[in-house]
């Protein structure tokens, strides 16, 4: 009886530690994605697909699906980075398609 109680307690503690770890992982991924989104937004190049991805990531985290949440945050981060890179490229090359 005592052994079973100890096992249950250990499992609960391990589960809580794992959840806290997943949540911390998600928060790190989300914060990185939000920073990338904001960097693109600051130069007025944010894609309109990025904020919905971040919302989906939050929804997945709220439902406890941290793997999915971290994957979605990673996609959002990539979009933010690509949008910012797009802004830098266009700043140099927009005249290439100008009618002359």
């Amino acid at each position, binding site marked *: 009886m005592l052994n079973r109680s100890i096992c249950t307690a250990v499992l609960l503690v391990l589960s809580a530690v794992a959840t806290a770890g997943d949540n911390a992982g998600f928060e790190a991924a989300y914060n990185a994605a939000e920073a990338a989104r904001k960097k693109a937004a600051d130069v007025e*190049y944010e894609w*309109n*697909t990025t904020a919905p991805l971040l919302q989906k990531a939050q929804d997945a985290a709220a439902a406890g699906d941290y793997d999915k949440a971290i994957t979605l945050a990673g996609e959002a981060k990539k979009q933010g980075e690509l949008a910012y890179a*797009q802004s830098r490229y266009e700043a140099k090359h927009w005249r290439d*398609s100008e009618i002359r």
Partner: protein
Amino acid sequence: MVRILITAMSVLLFASSTVADPESDRKAFVNYFNKRFPNVATESYVNGIYALDKDAYEQWLDIEEFPPYEIAIEEGEQLFNTRFANGKGYADCFDKGGLGIRQNYPYFDSARKQVVTLELAINECREKHGEKPLGYKKGAIASLSAYMASTSRGNIFNITIPDKPALAAYEEGKQYFYSKRGQLNFSCADCHVSNASMQIRADKLSAALGHPTHFPVYRSKWGEMGTLHRRFDGCNKQVRANPQPAQGEAYRNLEYFLTYMSNGLEVNGPGARK
């Protein structure tokens, strides 16, 4: 000495390739479409896609017999002639009482160093006289703009670039027009220059020349009137980019560039579009 000459020539070459010459830009813009569509008269571009799509043009002519924007013109006239609470009206804010002036918008306000569109001027008039500003994309402002455009039909667009700050605003608008953006990596020019007349899903793409002349428009897709900045907003979203605020600096500068490109064409707004 030789090095100095080479440096001077390099500077001159660099300058000539980067300094804007709006009139050369406009001529090149018009020539591009004239060469690409030799059977389309320049003045026809005010009709948007209907200048390039004969079948759609016939249907559009039928629509124009009972134009869906007529109600907006009537509503706009009523709003225009309704006095503000302080007894003043829109006519007090504009040259010529606000009638027959659409061809001069947008203009560059050198004192404030910014582009002023007709819709911005309408709201500034309201605020000057103690009224709340209107939303910029649809509704009352589209009706007011429609009425003012209707009183200007046939007048020729004559956008001026009076000084260096104006030229800088023009250049920013031009850069916006040619810059790719959004997840689809499309610029305004990609659709409305390079691919004008081409099919995109169920529709054909209009030419950028003449774009601003017929706004605001009643758009069948909207089922109501909308302003040019509402259309900019839609275009940006279609390429999966976050749109800029209507009447924000980016869209006002874009309108400035785009309307300058249509200098010499006539005001034919409001219009009806798919």
